[in-house]
């Protein structure tokens, strides 16, 4: 899932300073699962904003609406009827959702209430770890299911570097060396050959905004393009 963390309260408050009627839109998918921007987090943030603005003698009316997914047009429809009741929107979705809301309502200022952080896994309640940088050319088949682009601090394709420190990365004693783990796993699987071969320079497809059209769906883009 996409993992986000709420922005510091003072920053959020600063973003919507001067607006007296704001709609806070939560997202019911990734950011809800990672406890950053679902229905509950919307309610908590709104209560904090309400209280803080009262104390500042500049009361604010904050509406709440959590949709299933802000990155999907059909779920944004319910916003159409109410958006004009507000001066601005706060979005607690990931950066994709925030942009999709802003794109739908170009006349309305839209502000982020979270910092989108990574694509990661759920290690425990409230505990998430990054696992994927969405590089567009997955090498997990070669590396025993451990991503060197994400998990190696230098993103090495032919690692490990000389900084491996008792099995850990040179950046921290708490960060395992990805290539050490890759070696151990492939050795157990009898697949060390997989990393003996030279891996050439990456094509870095993530240097431009990417579009994916699944095979058979070319028409849907053609129809939507004016």
């Amino acid at each position, binding site marked *: 899932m996409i993992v986000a963390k709420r922005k510091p309260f003072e920053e959020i408050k600063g973003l919507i300073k001067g607006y007296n009627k704001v709609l806070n839109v939560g997202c019911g998918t990734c950011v809800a699962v990672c406890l950053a921007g679902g229905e509950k987090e919307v309610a908590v943030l709104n209560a904090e904003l309400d209280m803080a603005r009262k104390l500042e003698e500049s009361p604010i009316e904050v509406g709440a609406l959590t949709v299933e997914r802000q990155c999907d047009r059909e779920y944004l429809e319910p916003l159409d009827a109410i958006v004009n009741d507000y001066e601005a929107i706060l979005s607690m979705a990931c950066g994709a959702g925030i942009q999709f809301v802003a794109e739908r309502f170009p006349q309305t200022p839209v502000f982020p209430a979270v910092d989108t952080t990574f694509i990661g896994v759920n290690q425990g309640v409230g505990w998430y770890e990054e696992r994927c940088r969405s590089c567009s050319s997955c090498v997990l088949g070669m590396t025993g299911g451990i991503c060197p682009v994400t998990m190696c601090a*230098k993103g*090495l394709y032919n690692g490990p570097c*000389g900084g491996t420190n008792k099995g850990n990365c040179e950046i921290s004693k708490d960060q395992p060396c990805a290539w050490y783990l890759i*070696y151990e796993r492939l050795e157990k699987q009898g697949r060390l050959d997989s990393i003996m071969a*030279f891996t050439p320079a990456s094509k870095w497809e993530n240097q431009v905004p990417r579009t994916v059209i699944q095979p058979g769906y070319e028409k849907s883009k053609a129809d939507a393009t004016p």
Partner: protein
Amino acid sequence: MKSGSNLEAILEAGHFAFTGELGPPRGTNGEEVKKKASYLKGMVDSVNITDNQTSVVRMSSWAACIILIQEGLEPNFQMVCRDRNRLAMQSDILGAYTHGVRNMLCLSGDHQKFGDHPDAMGVFDIDSMQLINMVKQMRDEGKFLGGADIEDPPKIFIGAASNPFAEPYEWRVHRLAKKINAGTDFIQTQCVYNMDRFREFMKRVVDMGLHEKCYILAGVTPMKSLGMARYIASQVPGMDVPDSLIDRLKGAGKGKVAEEGIKFALEQIEEFKEMEGVAGVHLMAIEWEHRVPEIAERAGVLPRPKP
């Protein structure tokens, strides 16, 4: 000869190579480079010029390389993957070669988190293995990484590092083989302190015949003080300083630790001269360039051969 560098000629002639190292200043004082170079002149076959070592900004490696050439020394241009993408790397290689640089050492580079700009974006567009291969392609095929032809391609003697002391140990010799296949002509190892592990590593290197495919220079850094030994032992990732060496330095007594450190380095050099597969020594006398003439003299590596 692939590059025509002095270092390549020395190694090809079968001489025991002796290389040094110089860190550029954290400013614009070229005299500082000249002063350090003056201690190394005639003492070593080539001088590694570090590239923002430990991720701290310094005068660029290629610029300091040019000063060395002007002073009559042969530089070994170190290049890390942390600070430049493939375009910048290739243009720096062209520029450095044009000014007379003939040796390169291709490295990953320390993580930027350690240095004076910990918030910097680490580039790592290509890794050290890919850098080695890119320099080889530029030299042997006369083509840029992107495939276009190079007018008058740079003829570089390609160096790389190897650290026999970082886990997974069993993998390090395979990584060395991979670097050789990628195009490495010579290796300079991480500083050796654990001789047992190094002997073991070299045995595997020789068993695999890797020493016949590339020249291996053993890294030596004399311990200047007990504090330095303890710091390297505990704080520098990928370094292996046995307790026995710390005890030996401790036992030397006040005021005699540096001499004991040099003695240990000299013993190492003597052993490397005889060790199968070792083609030379890379002396990294960090901020101790002025002691290099004495160390070279006592190591019996002077005068340096003229190829």
